[in-house]
């Protein structure tokens, strides 16, 4: 990592990717030990070529990252722009007279904290459901022998092939019959377990050594105690991944909450903000402020638990 930082210290010999690479490199910590190497002359032309090849991809990769992040920038910029300035021509790429007015009026016009609370409640409940039920099923599939195990596993995995929309109408009838229409429980119940978590827990638990479980059984622990006190603590990384994925997925869910919830005070953030867009269709600052409030918690969560996210995507893919 460090050796790359030397490039900018030398007179350029060959054309190489310019601005983007330098910008990025500045942000990287450079171990002091690497600095003397920077003074040394280049060993061979081959090394240079390889380095150029290695970094030439930044010409494409950096602009693409900017495109990926642009919607967030524009969301923040517009949310901070006064209403009158947002519809000025030419539009300014930077908020000129930044203001918190949009955020303030958002909190005044919409029960945004209530929506955030609803989102939090739903996401937390679904997360707990996934962690408990997916782990239990994953444990059974990883460790237990029972008649029909392969069949049940195939059945559960095959539900991945069923698009959620095929089951929307009957699920809604079911929820209504249960009296859970327009109720947070009606959003939570149909998402309380999922295939991804079961699959991931099974994969992880299969890789655990069996000795501890057997030792616990010898000491007289029953099946539940073995699961709860031996297997679950050992599975903490997988549990974290399942938990975070479930939480984010539930927080961002839109279609089902849109169908089930109708009271303004019961909405989740995505549904509420989409509603704001219909109510205040010309107040773009307010809409962007709403989007910001909805997006920021998940972005923070992602930055905190990045490793679990990327790991989860990778493991989820193993089933192929």
């Amino acid at each position, binding site marked *: 990592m460090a050796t790359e930082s030397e490039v900018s210290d030398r007179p350029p010999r060959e054309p190489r990717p310019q601005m983007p690479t330098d910008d990025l490199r500045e942000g990287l910590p450079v171990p002091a030990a690497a600095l003397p190497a920077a003074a040394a002359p280049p060993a061979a032309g081959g090394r240079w070529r390889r380095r150029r090849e290695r970094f030439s991809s930044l010409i494409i990769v950096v602009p693409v990252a900017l495109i990926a992040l642009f919607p967030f920038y524009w969301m923040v910029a517009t949310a901070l722009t006064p209403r009158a300035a947002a519809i000025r021509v030419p539009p300014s790429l930077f908020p000129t007279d930044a203001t918190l007015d949009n955020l303030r009026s958002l909190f005044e016009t919409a029960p945004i904290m209530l929506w955030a609370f609803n989102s939090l409640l739903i996401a937390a409940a679904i997360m707990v459901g996934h962690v408990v039920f997916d782990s239990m099923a994953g444990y059974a599939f990883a460790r237990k022998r*029972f008649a029909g195990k392969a069949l049940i596993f195939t059945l559960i995995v095959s539900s991945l092939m069923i698009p959620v929309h095929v089951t929307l109408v009957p699920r809604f009838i079911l929820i209504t019959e249960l009296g859970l229409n327009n109720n947070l429980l009606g959003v939570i119940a149909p998402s309380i377990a999922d295939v991804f978590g079961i699959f991931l827990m099974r994969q992880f638990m299969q890789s655990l050594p069996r000795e501890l479980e057997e030792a616990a059984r010898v000491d007289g622990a029953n099946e539940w105690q073995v699961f709860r006190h031996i297997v679950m603590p050992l599975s903490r990384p997988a549990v974290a991944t399942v938990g975070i994925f479930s939480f984010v997925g539930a927080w961002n869910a839109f279609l089902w909450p849109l169908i089930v919830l109708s009271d303004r005070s019961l909405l989740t953030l995505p549904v509420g903000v989409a509603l704001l867009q219909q109510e205040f269709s010309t107040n773009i600052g307010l809409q962007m402020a709403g989007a910001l409030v*909805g997006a920021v918690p998940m972005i923070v969560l992602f930055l905190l638990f990045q490793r679990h996210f990327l790991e989860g995507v990778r493991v989820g893919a193993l089933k192929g």
Partner: protein
Amino acid sequence: MTAIATSQPARTPGRLRRFWRHNGAGYLFVAPSLAFFIIFIFIPLGWSFLLSFQDFGFRESVFIGLDNYVALLRDPIFHQAALNTVIYSIFTVAVWVLVAMILATLIHPLPPRLRTFFRAAYYLPAVTSAVFIALVWKWVLNANPWGLANYLLSLFGAGPVGFISDPSPFLGANVALWSVILSSVLTIPAVGVVLYSAALAAIPRELYEAAESEGAGALAKFRYITVPLLKPVTLYVAVIYTIAAFEVFERVYVMTGGGPGYATHTIVYLIWRTGFRFSEYGLASAQAFLLFAVIATISVIQFRALRSDVEY
């Protein structure tokens, strides 16, 4: 839960008791999830199938055979929604798969820390609800001269274009639909990048070194080593993105509301409207099953087309 193996009545016949001793714990651990899948997925699946042959009424429902399906196949709105969904899916999936593969290949040779940085940057939109991203795109693409996209066009003396409000025909679809597609393809296929990255790490470096010693350039290496060896991942990524694209909803709901007219109706948007705006449960179920059939067919085709026995 703590009572797992103890709840057996004493008079259970010996064989059954033995069966339970060997299998019971497994069943109890699986039971909650299995019950969930049966109640919320498999029963609704069958129920939905039955509903699709009914004229649903809250008082009573009448079996009407294939009438819902026949009506749909004759319905111009359904045709438009189906066609829109297919066009949307073909373009977004093709671009997403290609972009994911290229980006993963490009960030692969970078130092680990940079690689992680880019993967994270690309992944950020994926942890944000599509509603919020779509709201921004709606704002960027608005028809007014202060809309960012129209401002950029005006710099070249073009526009203003009613990106999401113009239903006039354009390149085999219409302007509004292409704008929705544009906003989708500009969203980085984060999951694909992560999956391809993981797969790239598993390709032995010797293959590339051998190719280099034969004088292969970057493009040749990509074309003859990377692409073929990534084929299994490409299959998987194509399938998950096809399913995702066919189920597009938030983007349409927020950006265009299916309009103008029916210009950007997609199948799922139509299902939502039919089922939950007009409470036509039977018709909505039939729409859902047609969607299901299409997705299943395409998945099978993709599996056939991309199936290969890659070994290295």
